[in-house]
């Protein structure tokens, strides 16, 4: 039986990991992610989660260890944040190149100096081009559900890429909300144990092989192309996994995107993470004033939901992007992504970019409302 518990975002992630029957956890503490690694340690020591827990000496080693574990055939998990993500950056790229279907929880936080432990998207966005699938969640329920979905997507034989699940520091990580924890039996049926479709680092199973020695440029191009194709195939896999998840568990947080009153809207607020929920509140308030506004959440930032975005935005008058990041010297990262997609389809829709809430600064509905009204 499923049950409803009051869980913080971090606890919801830990529950997702536990229900996914992860076999190897390697992690290193950093605020605001720490509760995830503490909770998992408690469950492994208490026998609630039958996993090996590697208490590594750094994030670089955390990512290294889950790569090794996954390449040897185990389902593996790690979580980090901010400086920790940057410290493991080399291995984050390695994981994608090695095609290991690991899942990582990233609790978004500002990267210093100054020391600032609050929400900011700059950590995860800096890994945009490395070959990870990225899910940005808006609430604690979605955090739990996304971890389970992430393993199904990552381990699909058409994908075999690692997945990051992003939740904003404190906004979600340390805020309790009611979360429906699905029944283990249902999760087991939805997510069977990991069965690698390729060679593993185990001489009892696989014949001798070498991985990762020097590859000439012309062969490297093929490896990259395969990764790109896998990213593109992931879109279909994501749509299917989300549908099946809804059928079994009755929840849908959106597929690649989530639309809110977009159909008849003239102006659409595009966002990700918790801001997407704030945007829905803004939409309701502005609609009361008679303004035709909608909200679109980018749930999967990679692979980028090109088709969905075009379909949703093609006949709109204005797009306002609200994001907790800024590419210094240029513009908001999400806004740039949107413009590139619209431009590719020859759509001349102005995209306004607002960077708000950096380093955990407050994001108020009235700030967003003001901009929307200005552009209407």
């Amino acid at each position, binding site marked *: 039986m499923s049950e409803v518990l009051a869980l913080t975002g971090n606890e919801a992630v830990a529950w997702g990991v536990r229900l996914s029957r992860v076999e190897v956890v390697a992690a290193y503490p950093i605020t605001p992610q720490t509760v995830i690694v503490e909770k998992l340690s408690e469950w492994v020591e208490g026998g609630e989660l039958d996993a090996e827990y590697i208490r590594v000496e750094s994030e670089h080693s955390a990512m290294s260890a889950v790569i*090794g574990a996954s390449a040897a055939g185990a389902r593996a998990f790690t979580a980090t944040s901010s400086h920790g993500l940057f410290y493991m950056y080399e291995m984050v790229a390695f994981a994608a190149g090695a095609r290991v279907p690991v899942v990582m929880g990233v609790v978004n936080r500002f990267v210093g100096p100054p020391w600032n432990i609050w929400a900011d998207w700059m950590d995860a966005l800096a890994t945009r081009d490395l070959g990870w699938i990225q899910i940005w969640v808006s609430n604690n329920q979605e955090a739990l559900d996304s971890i389970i979905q992430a393993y199904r997507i990552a381990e699909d034989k058409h994908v075999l890429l690692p997945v990051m699940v992003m939740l904003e520091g404190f906004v979600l990580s340390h805020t309790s909300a009611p979360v429906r924890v699905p029944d283990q039996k249902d999760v087991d049926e939805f997510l069977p144990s990991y069965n690698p479709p390729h060679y593993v680092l185990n001489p009892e199973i696989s014949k001798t092989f070498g991985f990762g020695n*020097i590859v*000439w440029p012309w062969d490297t191009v093929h490896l990259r192309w395969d990764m790109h194709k896998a990213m593109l195939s992931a879109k279909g896999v994501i749509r299917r996994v989300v549908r099946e998840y809804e059928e079994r568990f009755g929840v849908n947080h959106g597929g690649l995107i989530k639309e809110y009153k977009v159909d008849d809207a003239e102006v659409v607020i595009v966002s990700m993470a918790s801001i997407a929920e704030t945007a829905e509140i803004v939409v309701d308030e502005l609609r009361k004033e008679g303004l035709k506004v909608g909200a679109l959440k980018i749930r999967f930032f990679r692979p980028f939901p090109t088709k969905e975005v075009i379909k949703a935005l093609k006949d709109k008058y204005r797009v306002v992007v609200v994001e907790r990041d800024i590419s210094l010297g240029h513009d908001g990262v999400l806004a740039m992504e949107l413009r590139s997609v619209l431009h590719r389809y020859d759509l001349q829709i102005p995209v306004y970019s607002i960077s708000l809430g950096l380093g955990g600064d407050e994001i108020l509905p009235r700030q967003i409302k003001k901009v929307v009204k200005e552009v209407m």
Partner: protein
Amino acid sequence: MSLREIVSKPDLLLPGHSACPGCPSAIALRMALKALGEKTVLVIPASCSSVYQGIYPGESFNVIVYNVAFASAAAVASGIRRALTKKGYTDVNVVVWGGDGGLVDIGMATMSGAAERGEDLIAICYDNEAYMNTGIQRSGATPPGAWTTTTWTGKTEIKKPMPFIMLEHGARYVATASVGYPIDIYNKVKKAASLRGEGFRYIHILAPDPPGWRFDASLTVELGKLAVNTGFWPLWEAEVINGKIKFRLNPPSNKLLDPSKRVPIEKFIEKQGRFRVAKEFHLRKLHQQMDFYWQLVKAYLSISKD
């Protein structure tokens, strides 16, 4: 075991690798793989070994090989080991095979973490005393007086005493070896493999490197012997059992506690081009390094007497 018996064991280093003539890493790896056997996963950080194994789709190491980032080997190996253990495959050797750069310098924290956690791994460092793969740059394991392409006038600091550092982690088994004594390498790797299931094991093999140390490729083994007989590189092994250290010198180093029994260090130095830049103070530093290493040896010998 005699050299003849060892040589007759299947060779898991296949012909066709691209190591330099006289490569000490290839000699040591050949011995190590004979001792480890086929049920082995090699984890190799960036180094000459990641290059000379061959170019994709070729591969001249006939075991499962995972090439990993420079600093990551002992952590990746920890993950592999835990995954195999979790799935019940306990009789596989998971082995880190890396250079002095990968294990003594950039991967030091990773090695330290794995040793402290008592991961059930064997880590083997072939120490050619510099970053050879990138063109002979100084490492923490380069000795004083040695020319490298980042110490044109000779390195001024002593060699980091890595095997002692690993021993102080309480590693289950730690040994030094030299490419001058291949049977000793075989026996020590065999010993380490026999302790599978008991924790972290570390073997540090001194690897005289013809292009890096500037000597003729025919002299690799001779220099490996001279390094030991001059007392530059003492051969020893140690076990830690329930917190108790059992440390012993191996032949021929067991005869060399008395410095007068050692071949003069000049015999070792003069055969290598890299020491040509060494000045008086470099050589003093080199002697200090040797004194320091032998002091550590004596300290451990006296600890393990009782």
